[in-house]
């Protein structure tokens, strides 16, 4: 599977993703500059965390209108996968490729900590290898990660099983105390209608080797790799 890791001015998790893809899951990977529009030779595009364009105006707002993100629409229409983590999630929301928006954390603090994530949807290419109700541990590192969507958007998101991860306790209880940023209904990650565009605030690339303190983030990559068989069609679960 051929991966591309997008680099905006201000991106900071690009090298981490590149490392995990090339050295841990051992797949071909290249960096994609934010002005590039040619994504034809890729199967999955990663939008990493950071502060694209300084997060001026709103987090992810300027990047959401950049040439590479405009090209992503066609890439997704052609069946490509997109994984946005942290700032990448903010960018996908600002671009309108995922519903909702990420706001300033309710606590007003920048939160850099480990979080437990309850897996809700295992029908996406990124979560096929997981069990519903499983709890993953991944770090977050953000100041603007409070997920917000208005009532109709949230209802539509739930109706189509668009919520992938919720912040929870270690034993999977979705409670206020486990919510690090004030996200509505503890939402930590969502997918689009086709399941091929996934955004989450946590950092899977920072939980990909035992030396990092955990390997749960790797499960997303492994699920994704398991979804394509030789002829490029979906693997049936």
């Amino acid at each position: 599977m051929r991966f591309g890791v997008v680099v905006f001015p201000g991106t900071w998790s690009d090298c981490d993703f590149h490392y995990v893809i090339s050295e841990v899951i051992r797949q071909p990977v290249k960096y994609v500059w934010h002005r590039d529009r040619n994504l034809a030779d890729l199967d999955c595009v990663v939008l990493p965390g950071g502060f694209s364009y300084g997060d001026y105006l709103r987090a992810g707002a300027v990047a959401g209108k950049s040439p590479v993100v405009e090209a992503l629409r066609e890439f997704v229409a052609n069946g490509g996968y997109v994984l946005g983590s942290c700032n990448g999630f903010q960018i996908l929301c600002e671009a309108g490729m995922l519903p909702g928006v990420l706001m300033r954390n309710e606590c007003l603090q920048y939160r850099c900590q480990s979080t437990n994530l309850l897996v809700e949807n295992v029908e996406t290419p990124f979560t096929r290898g997981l069990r519903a109700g499983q709890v993953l541990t991944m770090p977050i590192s953000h100041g603007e990660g409070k997920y917000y969507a208005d009532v109709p958007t949230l209802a539509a998101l739930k109706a189509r099983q668009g919520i992938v991860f919720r912040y929870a306790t270690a034993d999977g209880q979705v409670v206020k105390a486990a919510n690090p940023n004030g996200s509505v209904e503890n939402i930590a990650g969502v997918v689009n209608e086709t399941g091929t565009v996934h955004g989450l605030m946590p950092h899977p690339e920072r939980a990909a080797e035992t030396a990092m303190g955990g390997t749960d983030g790797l499960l997303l990559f492994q699920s994704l790799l398991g979804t394509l068989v030789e002829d490029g069609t979906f693997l049936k679960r």
Partner: protein
Amino acid sequence: MKLRVLIRLKPGILDVQGSAVQRALAGLGFGDVRELRVGKLIEIDLEAASAAVAQQRVDEMCRKLLANTILEDYTIEAIEAERLAPR
């Protein structure tokens, strides 16, 4: 043509920044503040054939980039006689 865009969080959306500023003011003896919300001000000078065209262009800018209408409302006003910012 000079215009001023005022961007506010929609009513009902919790403004944590505003609440923090309000608490800080209360600490300085301004406990009489009932509510405080923080917004954004953007001043734009653009080439336009008429005020209506300028208004329309800036409205398009707001919808495409300047405001996120999930969260924010915006108003646009002409500031013809003023300079954009004090020097």
